[in-house]
């Protein structure tokens, strides 16, 4: 079995869980029943011990893959010297009406193998390793009812019309397929007995068709008609896949411990929901016309933040609870020996002041899209504003979450300013009554003065990451993206030039900052998309914005997916994969580009906000 690299993976999912499928036909990552559950397959993090489910030709092959148009259903074609097979992979998803009518497994992966040319011997290897390869299980052959992976209170049911048998702790078999012949596979999860066991034919094919139709109708609601439609729709499909449907939360990525540096220790668990991502994600979803998902996300934010009000944590699980404490799994060797493998994320204990502004800003976008709040939510938002007024000068861990050190970050203060601006806009629009307006206005103005005086470096002619220093950071582009500075202002243009000079990894890629680049990190995908977004908003010529954006698109893998980072030397993805935030950046940059191309003002948000501020000032 060939060892896949990050770029060799594609994702399938059902808005509750996700699997990574390699171009070699192997499902190497799957956590059930939800994104942050323990793994059933983790060959991604340990090819020997982690467990996998592979289906591929027994002889040497070349593979090519794609998503079926406008879906999250994956099709991989394997070509050998004797013939060709196609494998279609899906985690089925169904409409409400179908859920009502059909007896559906709780969770399922279906795989359909069809021989389209010649003859191919197909090899199947099913090696479940539940509980991050630590949980004991029993394999049982129940004949026509399939194979049972008995884990006590839960079980996995593995069924196929291929000839398979148990070999120690795995299930394996080979079968020769001729043109037109097919094999069907289903793996389902059951915590409720009796488990549904629909007959494989036509269930597998029907599930794939049903899922494809569901994804197609969902993406059909996207309003974007620009020139980068394929990339934007792929990103939207990914965001939807990473949404936990029962709560509306969106996980940052479906994986843990894919390294930011090969062989290094910067391996984190991203299967949680970061408040930071909220406002940009809400902007992307509302911008694409997916108001339902955006509203669900804001609903989750509001519900979640109530639990710790008025203090906010950095990240939460899909139901708004604190994840279990971070721990290391020493028995897994890590992706390409990048140890340690961690589950849980200690960043939940950090102080990050930007999250207050993010939550408020997402709520403002919800209101701009026609939403409304109840009085309790308005009171919560007001409390967040008061918290900002008390704490905006405090040092924090900042957007990039370095562990240990707390500093006064310009980006965090910017988001405190954004939060107060947002609250004033909400008041102006009648959604926030009985708020301490004078306090909000005075603090907002004080934050602006502080940033303009102390976060601006005359010698560099640039804003800086930490006040009174010369440190640059790509997150300073947010000054324009959030409307603190006009994109075309001399200060912003000059800041962009300095960032490009000093943090540019090549013509298109940007490091976060020099402190982290020096450690050998990759360049951050979101930073490049911020740069494209900034240029599209008026920071530079349209052609420059488009060139940067299209160069970035060229760095996606063959099915259009990005990780968190990109190695500037090899162009290979690094870090957890696929990363929702990078795709959020892609969508927002594409929306801005399209608006610029159409001659639409791309500063609508700022305009309305300024009007609001003027009204209040008046």
């Amino acid at each position, binding site marked *: 079995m060939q060892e896949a690299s990050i770029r060799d993976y594609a994702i399938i999912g059902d808005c509750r869980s996700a699997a990574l499928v390699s171009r070699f036909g192997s499902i190497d990552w799957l956590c059930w029943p939800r994104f942050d559950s323990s793994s059933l397959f983790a060959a991604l993090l340990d090819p020997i011990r982690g467990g996998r489910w592979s289906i591929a030709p027994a002889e040497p092959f070349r593979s090519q893959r794609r998503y079926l148009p406008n879906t999250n259903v994956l099709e991989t074609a394997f070509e050998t010297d004797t013939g060709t097979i196609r494998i279609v992979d899906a985690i089925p998803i169904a409409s409400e009406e179908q859920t009502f009518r059909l007896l559906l497994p709780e969770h399922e992966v279906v795989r359909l193998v069809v021989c389209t040319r010649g003859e191919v011997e197909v090899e199947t290897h099913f090696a479940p390793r539940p509980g991050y390869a630590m949980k004991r299980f029993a394999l049982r052959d129940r004949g026509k009812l399939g194979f049972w992976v008995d884990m006590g209170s839960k079980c996995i049911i593995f069924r196929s019309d291929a000839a398979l048998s148990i070999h120690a702790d795995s299930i394996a078999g080979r079968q020769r397929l001729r043109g037109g012949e097919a094999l069907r596979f289903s793996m389902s999860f059951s915590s*409720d007995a009796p488990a549904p066991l629909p*007959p494989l034919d036509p269930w597998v094919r029907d599930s794939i068709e049903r899922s494809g139709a569901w994804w197609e109708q969902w993406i059909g609601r996207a309003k974007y008609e620009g020139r980068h439609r394929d990339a934007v729709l792929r990103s939207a499909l990914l965001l939807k896949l990473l949404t936990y449907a029962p709560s509306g939360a969106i996980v940052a990525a479906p994986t843990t411990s894919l390294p930011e540096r090969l062989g290094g220790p910067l391996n984190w668990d991203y299967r949680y929901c970061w408040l930071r991502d909220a406002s940009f994600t809400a902007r992307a979803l509302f911008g694409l016309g997916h108001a339902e998902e955006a509203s669900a996300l804001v609903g989750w934010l509001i519900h979640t933040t109530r639990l710790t009000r008025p203090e906010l944590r950095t990240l939460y699980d899909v139901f708004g609870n604190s994840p279990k404490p971070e721990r290391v799994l020493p028995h897994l060797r890590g992706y390409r020996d990048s140890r340690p493998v961690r589950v849980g994320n200690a960043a939940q204990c950090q102080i990050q002041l930007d999250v207050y502004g993010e939550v408020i800003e997402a709520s403002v976008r919800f209101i701009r899209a026609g939403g409304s709040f109840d009085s309790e939510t308005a009171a919560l938002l007001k409390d967040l504003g008061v918290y900002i007024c008390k704490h905006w000068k405090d040092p924090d861990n900042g957007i990039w979450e370095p562990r240990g050190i707390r500093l006064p970050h310009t980006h965090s203060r910017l988001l405190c300013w954004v939060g107060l601006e947002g609250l004033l806009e909400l008041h102006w629009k009648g959604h926030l009554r009985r708020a301490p307006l004078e306090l909000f206005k005075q603090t907002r103005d004080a934050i602006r003065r502080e940033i303009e005086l102390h976060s601006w470096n005359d010698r560099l002619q640039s804003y800086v990451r930490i006040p009174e220093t010369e440190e640059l950071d790509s997150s300073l582009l947010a000054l324009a993206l959030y409307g603190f500075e006009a994109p075309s202002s001399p200060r912003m243009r000059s800041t962009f030039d300095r960032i490009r000079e000093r943090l540019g990894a090549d013509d298109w890629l940007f490091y976060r900052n020099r402190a982290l680049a020096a450690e050998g990190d990759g360049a951050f995908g979101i930073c490049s998309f911020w740069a494209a977004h900034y240029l599209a908003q008026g920071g530079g010529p349209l052609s420059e914005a488009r060139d940067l954006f299209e160069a970035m698109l060229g760095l996606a893998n063959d099915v259009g997916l990005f990780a968190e980072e990109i190695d500037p030397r090899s162009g290979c993805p690094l870090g957890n994969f696929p990363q929702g935030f990078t795709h959020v950046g892609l969508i927002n940059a594409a929306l801005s580009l399209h608006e610029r191309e159409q001659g639409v003002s791309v500063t609508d948000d700022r305009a309305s906000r300024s009007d609001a501020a003027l009204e209040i000032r008046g």
Partner: protein
Amino acid sequence: MSVASWLLWGFVGTVILTTIMAGSQTLGLTRMNIPYLLGTMFTANRDRAKVIGVGMHLVLGSLFALLYAAAFHAWGAAGWWRGALIGLVHSAFVLVVGMPIMPGIHPRMASEYQGPTATRQLEPPGPLALHYGVQTPVSVVLAHVVYGAVLGGFYRLA
């Protein structure tokens, strides 16, 4: 026979039985979900099936209490241990006789011998319902013994 006592303690006993079975599932002793198993006789929708199943189970449990009450009257006395004994026999019947014939009763349940078909797609329970987890018989016996004990302990003959 005291109808009020039968209805009241039959209902209370069934509530406790249902809670013990659900608790056993939550604690990981079994995958068996009795409301889901019963409800899927009438609908394929998972959520709706569980609601229907809870209602069915409460009604059936109360009806079964009639047999317990009849036994108490035949004995001329109730009492918790008499109830528990009947509960033990009841659970043995459910496990040894009731579960294996489920595929013949349940319109959506597959047979061990024929595999799933288009209309029969649910996993059969197997002997002693062991397919739903090796500790399933333990939780079924415990739940029925407690059911019987509650009924026997509180039922009034007159």
